[in-house]
């Protein structure tokens, strides 16, 4: 979603990250409901992970609000390259 917003819709990198996070709310809610109905969600593990994640999210979002456009592009681009390499290696 972030690359589409930046390269196609010409969003700034920071605004694209923020828009992506907001859009993930309804998307993940729909996904959780679907998987929840199928009985696949491990609630105990999710609660422990979420405990760390909501703390980490505040740290990350504060850093996003301050970071420069350039460092966000480098961080996000590097992250995508890493994901692509991991997908090929573990595939």
């Amino acid at each position: 979603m972030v690359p589409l917003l930046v390269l196609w819709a010409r969003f700034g990198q920071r605004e694209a990250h923020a828009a992506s996070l907001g859009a993930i709310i309804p998307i993940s809610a729909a996904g959780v409901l679907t998987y929840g109905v199928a009985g696949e969600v491990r609630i105990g593990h999710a609660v422990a992970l979420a405990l760390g994640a909501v703390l980490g999210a505040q740290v990350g979002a504060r850093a996003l609000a301050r970071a420069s456009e350039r460092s966000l592009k480098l961080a996000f681009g590097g992250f995508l390259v890493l994901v692509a390499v991991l997908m090929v290696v573990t595939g």
Partner: protein
Amino acid sequence: MSSVALLLALVAVGAASGMLAGLLGVGGGVLLVPFLVLAVGMSQHEAEATSLLVVLPTAIVASLTLWRRGVGDLPDALAMGVVGAAGAAAGALVALSLPGAALRTVFAVFVGLVGVRLVRDGLRTAAMGE
């Protein structure tokens, strides 16, 4: 892994994925799913389902943090997400009709090219001194 060690590992990995999610505008599933499958031993379906239940509160907290700082437009983003949820269903149907290995390769190449382009843009901005 003992249950205390597992609990600590879950909270720590959750914190790392939350930071990544808040900074990069991703859900964090890309970190959570491999961890849950490879280290915790969940099935792929369980891992994806569980990661979504972590991604939801992560995205809510990160969005509220940004909203308070005046970054982005939360109502617009939520509307985009509702449309995106419909698109995701359509995309999943297309993906299901493709062989897994082909889909994975196409996706990896796409993600890799976009990543290289963003890094190049970033470096170019740096060279110009912004």
